[in-house]
């Protein structure tokens, strides 16, 4: 029998928003200290932001609070009283809820079905008449609404995120942890969702702790902020007292900030031209249509856009993974169908997203993976018998040159970390003559130093006269790296602007399909 969640004889917790506090929260995994004596206080009805780099301990902290981890040391106070949370169920019972970075909704179920099934006391036989009335009453009280009869897969990302938050309120949660809730939203959608959350806080319905790395959102919506670095609390305070510079300094500490890459040289001759290309998208229901896309030598053209607006399909068209129904792709004026021979002759190289899946054979060794472009080449000619020694020499040179951290050159590439797989693929793709480099989400999920290095190499390739087409869901990355920015929305190029004249708000509007 578990001990009761509330102290016997104590008054029940007050209605509405909960005050939550951690005292000296510490979490060790073996000899590694992921969280070191972190105390954070979130008063009732306030919006608290938790800032930090990848691996700073933000997720560890909230997982301890939600009962996913059992903290090595430290306490939780809820409503000013000590609470013992052994597992997420205890947290839920006390009114604590969490919205995850990735959606936990069931795609084929309708909104109403998703809400009803998420309850603990769903009746065996569901009386839809009564449930719908209850849901309609619940929705009437909410500042924002989501259509009840739509299957979740037809909702836009912003609506899904709103539904995740509605679900928490529907379940009676009064303290919400939001884990990077806007990472899949357009700036407009993010503003709408966070605006509503802010309003719910101000109305005293909920308190919020939000994990984020976007300073803009912290300044616009949060009351207080805590900054973690390497598991330690390195800064805390009222948002109104802090500037972006202060927060960045706390987050990054002594590490050097990401320097904007130096650029040299002017754009040259046209290398890639995509004209009138039409192709079906993943679902087969929509079409992607690229009427005119040009990339010139010595320029980086960045394509921004929310995930699922056709960037992946465009990448697949360019890599030959997806059939087109019309139009043409030309490289240096010659038709291009992404065959191995053509990419060799025209010096086209790729860095697709999820390189382990799209650009590697996971069980082959690092050396073999690095040799994919060159194993059957003998100088300029072809070879039938491979040269193991040459392949190995080349592989070892590139592993050293690109600082790929691997246990051995013969280790399977799947055993490397994400950043090192990315480096190995870059080593392969950027070696030799490269006239066109096509890249998709190159820094997704990588740590700080890997990101800086990979971006520097991309800019170096551009400076050397390579034409670069960069697709990324990270708008900051596109803005930082590109000479020219395109926005993709609903399978089309919705906007084009030179990087020097780029305006984030305008780009955001186009990303959201409000041209």
């Amino acid at each position, binding site marked *: 029998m578990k001990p009761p969640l509330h102290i016997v004889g104590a008054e029940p917790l007050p209605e509405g928003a909960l005050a939550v506090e951690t005292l000296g929260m510490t979490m060790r995994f073996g000899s590694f200290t992921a969280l070191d004596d972190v105390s954070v206080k979130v008063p009732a009805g306030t919006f608290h932001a938790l800032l930090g780099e990848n691996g700073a301990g933000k997720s560890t902290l909230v997982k301890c609070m939600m009962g996913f981890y059992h903290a090595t040391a430290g306490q939780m106070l809820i409503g000013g009283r000590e609470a013992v949370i052994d597992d*997420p169920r205890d947290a839920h019972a006390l009114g604590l809820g969490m919205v995850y970075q990735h959606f*936990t909704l069931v*795609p*084929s179920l309708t909104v109403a079905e998703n809400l009803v099934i998420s309850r603990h006391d769903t*009746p065996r*036989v569901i009386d839809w008449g009564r449930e719908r009335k209850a849901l309609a009453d619940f929705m009437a009280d909410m500042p924002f609404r989501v259509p009840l009869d739509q299957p979740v897969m037809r909702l836009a990302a912003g609506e899904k995120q709103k539904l995740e938050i509605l679900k928490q309120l529907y379940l009676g949660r009064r303290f919400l942890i939001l884990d990077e809730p806007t990472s899949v939203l357009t700036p407009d959608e993010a503003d709408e969702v966070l605006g509503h959350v802010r309003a719910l806080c101000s109305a005293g319905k909920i308190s919020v702790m939000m994990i984020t790395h976007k300073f803009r959102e912290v300044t616009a919506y949060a009351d207080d902020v805590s900054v973690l670095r390497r598991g330690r609390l390195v800064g805390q305070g009222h948002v109104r007292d802090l500037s972006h510079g202060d927060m960045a300094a706390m987050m990054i500490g002594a590490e050097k900030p990401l320097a904007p890459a130096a650029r040299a040289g002017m754009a040259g001759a046209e290398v890639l031209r995509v004209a009138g290309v039409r192709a*079906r998208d993943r679902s087969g229901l929509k079409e992607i249509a690229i009427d005119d896309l040009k990339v010139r030598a010595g320029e980086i053209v960045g394509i921004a856009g929310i995930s699922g607006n056709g960037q992946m399909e465009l990448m697949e068209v360019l890599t030959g993974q997806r059939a087109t129904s019309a139009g043409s792709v030309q490289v240096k004026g010659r038709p291009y169908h992404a065959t191995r021979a053509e990419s060799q002759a025209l010096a086209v190289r790729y860095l697709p997203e999820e390189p382990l899946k799209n650009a590697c054979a996971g069980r082959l060794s690092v050396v073999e993976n690095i040799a994919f472009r060159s194993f059957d080449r003998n100088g300029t000619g072809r070879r039938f018998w491979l040269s193991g020694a040459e392949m190995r020499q080349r592989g070892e040179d590139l592993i050293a040159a690109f600082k790929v951290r691997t246990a051995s050159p013969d280790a399977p590439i799947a055993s490397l970390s994400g950043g090192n797989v990315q480096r190995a693929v870059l080593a392969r793709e950027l070696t030799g003559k490269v006239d066109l480099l096509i890249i998709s989400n190159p820094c997704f999920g990588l740590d700080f130093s890997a990101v800086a290095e990979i971006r520097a190499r991309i800019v170096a390739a551009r400076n050397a006269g390579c034409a670069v087409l960069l697709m990324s869901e990270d708008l900051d990355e596109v803005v930082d790296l590109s000479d020219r920015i395109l926005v993709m929305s609903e399978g089309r190029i919705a906007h084009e602007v030179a990087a020097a004249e780029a305006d984030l708000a305008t780009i955001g509007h186009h990303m959201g399909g409000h041209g």
Partner: protein
Amino acid sequence: MENDLGLWAVPLAVVGGAIRVSTPILFVSLGETLTERSGRINLGLEGTLVLGAMTGYATAVLTGSPWAGVAVAALAGALFGLLHGLICSMGRVNDIAVGIAMMLLGTGLAFYFGKPYIQPAAPDLPAIPLGGWSSLPQVRSALNVNALFLIGIAAALALAWALRSTRPGLILRVVGDSTDAARAMGLNPALIRTGATALGGAFAGIGGAYLSLYYPGSWNEGISSGQGLMAVALVIFARWSPINCLWAALLFGGAGALGPALQSVGVTQGYYLFYAAPYVLTLGVLIATSSPSRALAGAPGELSITK
């Protein structure tokens, strides 16, 4: 002859055939729908069907009661489904490979234990004469409907309702569509999938009992002629909807009756080609509903063949 219906005998025979032949396909496809809605595919239902036919027939011979046969066939099917479910719950096991193994195991077991039951005759399941209003013997025989067919229709309606309006139904869909969401809800996907596979096996077992205890109505080794496999393909055609399973099963039952019907009205040339109609229809339907570039609409998200 006043009872000679001429060419009208063909559609009548097709309707009669649709009702008679569709029942096992209906049961197997309902069972498979249930299993696939939970995110797993059980290709072993062909084996379950044959095993159900054998155990049902043997039980009916030994007890004299066809309904006891149906019950035992359902039980055997459930146990076989449970075995499939348990094996698939272990890590790194491919449900399709297990299904093929279970198909061979099921038919093998049925042939081995069924040898002594090829000769003896078992009592048939009762049929309900719904054609009593007609004076035409052809109409009467076409509308001689077996109780299991009606139970199958009721089961299709009940399943459709349960998937929409009961907690177990919604939970089944959650598990089939997103393992992550199910885990976040505190559900155990492997357990629920195993349960769904066992229940699906029970449905297939009942379908087998119909084969041996009503139509064709005897136990032999060629009894299923691949109907279990076709039913699995049918589920895709039916878009994982129990009600669509009913229509699809009737369509395929009717197609299966086309060859014999043509033969009976005296078509002597090429009628045997129509014996292949259900198989050609299966192929045609699968090709027509397939696409090289897009995912299947309505497919449960966790299904290994559509991922």
